């Protein structure tokens, strides 16, 4: 559209998977223990993806390219296929489940509340939300200016999902977190947070916006490099995983996972976040 200044792509998907491989427990009463992958579930995934490119400026000395993508995913375990009950798992607390009608590996949590008799009562587990993002937005801006310069930035947003913040869960319980030692804190909330079995405060929304990439490049003029047999050369300074600009999550980084992704288990337990990386490079073509 508008001489290629504005482009749109739209994709809708609705897929249904049978015999999905799910990681389920072996009954220890057989004498064996651990987990095994079984062809069990019927799973649906639906959503859409939009990609838009907009070039508001395109002159000899300045080009400004905007790219925005937005995608959604609704994941659901439709059926186990064999009538089994929910599969509850979690290496620190039973906060995740495979449950029919809910996303795979979704989060549940339990709240401890102080009742009228001043007793701390543990409520039944309640559904919180999925463990994987249900919506993602990526926005990149590219400036090409003064013929040889390029500035590029990439912002990432992911949201709609939850993370189990084990570090804060344990700091609460040990009486170390600010939420517990704050003299103005609600004493009932402090009692609740320090309860060993509650997970309500630690299963947290994990929405975030990150400055994923920022780079500045300069392409050396041809007249300089051609003299030494080089067709072109570019100097770049690049930063990756530069900052969490905004997050609902209480931990260091909402993207970490102590336990790997193989079985949808998501745990933040003093896990090192993705490294911030800053690099300088020279790209030479002959």
């Amino acid at each position, binding site marked *: 559209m508008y001489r290629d200044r504005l482009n749109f792509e739209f994709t809708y998907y609705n897929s249904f998977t049978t015999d999905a491989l799910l990681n*389920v*427990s072996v009954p*220890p*009463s*057989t*004498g064996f223990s651990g987990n095994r992958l079984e062809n069990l579930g019927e799973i649906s995934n639906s959503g859409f993806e939009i990609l838009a490119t907009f070039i508001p400026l395109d002159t000899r000395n300045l080009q400004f390219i905007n790219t925005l993508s937005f995608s959604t995913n609704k994941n659901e375990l439709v059926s186990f296929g064999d009538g089994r009950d929910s599969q509850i*798992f979690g290496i620190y*607390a*039973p906060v995740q489940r495979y449950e029919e009608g809910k996303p795979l590996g979704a989060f549940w949590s339990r709240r401890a509340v102080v009742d009228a008799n001043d007793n701390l009562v543990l409520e039944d587990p309640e559904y919180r939300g999925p463990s994987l993002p249900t919506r993602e937005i990526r926005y990149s801006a590219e400036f090409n200016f003064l013929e040889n310069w390029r500035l590029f930035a990439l912002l990432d947003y992911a949201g709609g999902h939850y993370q189990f913040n084990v570090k804060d869960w344990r700091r609460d*319980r040990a009486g170390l977190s600010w939420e517990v030692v704050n003299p103005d804190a609600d004493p009932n909330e402090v009692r609740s947070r320090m309860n060993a079995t509650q997970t309500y405060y630690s299963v947290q929304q994990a929405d975030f916006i990150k400055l994923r990439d920022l780079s500045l490049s300069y392409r050396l003029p041809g007249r300089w490099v051609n003299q030494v047999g080089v067709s072109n050369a570019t100097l770049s300074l690049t930063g990756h995983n530069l900052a969490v600009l905004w997050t609902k999550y209480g931990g260091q980084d909402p993207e970490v996972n102590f336990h790997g992704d193989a079985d949808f288990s998501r745990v933040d337990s003093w896990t090192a976040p993705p490294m911030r990386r800053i690099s300088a490079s020279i790209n030479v073509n002959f």
Partner: protein
Amino acid sequence: MRMNKKITQIKPSKMMTKRTPFMAVLFFMIVALSCDSLLEVENPGAIEEQELSNPNLETLIINGVIGEFQYTYSYSALYTGAFSDELQGRHTFVQNHPLFLRTIDQSNVYVNNVYSFWQRSRASADDAIDRLVELKGNEEAEASLNMVIARAYAGYSYIMLGETFCAAPVSVSRAYSSDELMEFAVERFTDAIAAAGRATAAGADAAEVERYRNLAQVGLARAHLNLGNMTEAATAASAVPADFTFMNRHSDNSARQYNPYFDATTGANNRYITPGVDFTNTGDVRIPHTEERVTSLVSGIMLYIPYQPSQFSGWTPADSVEFERNTSVVLASGLEARYIEAEANGAVASTLTFVNERRDVGGQLPGVFAGDALMEELRVQRSRDFFMSGRRLGDIRRYKALYGEDYFLTGTDPYYNEPYGTVECFPIPQSEINSNPNL
């Protein structure tokens, strides 16, 4: 003509050269698709299923039964002791917290471990019983020492499941109550004792058969006592010689063979268990501990640390001996048989005599007890004689179920400064709930 002929000869050759990689790939794919074994992986260290029916591996199978049991018994003793009033303490690991405070649920890692290990021990022993019949035929198997061993260890595995767990399934069954699990144990021990008689008649090593028969006799008495079958318990116990001792062995050979009390009681910044309040500063030589509180795993928490109590291999009444990795523990004994007889017989003269004998061992003067006070003193003496040896949780559950005597700790735990919960037995873990359709 000659030229043309030459070209015709060359052309196919060039075509073949071009097609060779394609043909090779095609050939490889055909071979791969027609050959299932391409993805098979050999593990030279594994004993395959069919090998378990190899008569030459009979000893290995039985040693496997013993190995599973020995490892599990002491692991279970540590964590059930921490759950009962026997041990207190504090640990940095989150999963120890509900164990010490009796607030464990189905998600606790120790509940899962103790359960899985006991189920594996039970299944190994039950499986060995079937395999012995398969290997030797019913008649020979039923008259063999190994059958006595397998049944005795199976019986003890059921006892430990029943004493530890509120209920437990067997091979993906419904959940059996503790009493039903004790009945299974009675069955295994009764069969073991019968097999011992046949094994002796068949010429098996008489001393070894007798050792395992006595192990089964004590087990049978213990299971009957838990069921409240006092006559049967006393009868089974009376058949055990007073000097009988059967050890659960540990060694330095591998981590799996270490006594887990070593790590829990040694190292200035590692030890984390302390004798429960009723087992501290008693002056009783059977339950020694450090003279002063010492540093522990958790900064600022000072604890009395237990030395080897009287049921452990390094214990002497004169010296305090720290736990070693190879410290073994008594699994069954004539002493335990006498305790079972005394509890089953009740507050009679022989029980008072026995209680005063045990007080003497502990460095206490004889007492004059009668009725409930005598039975209470019997329970105190038993708790000291078998301190940390894997019996306490079963004992205090039995005292509450049969006599209404409650020894579970209440109030506030001094090391966590939090109130005790109300859980009195280990629940079935989540891993079984997830996967057993009969629960």
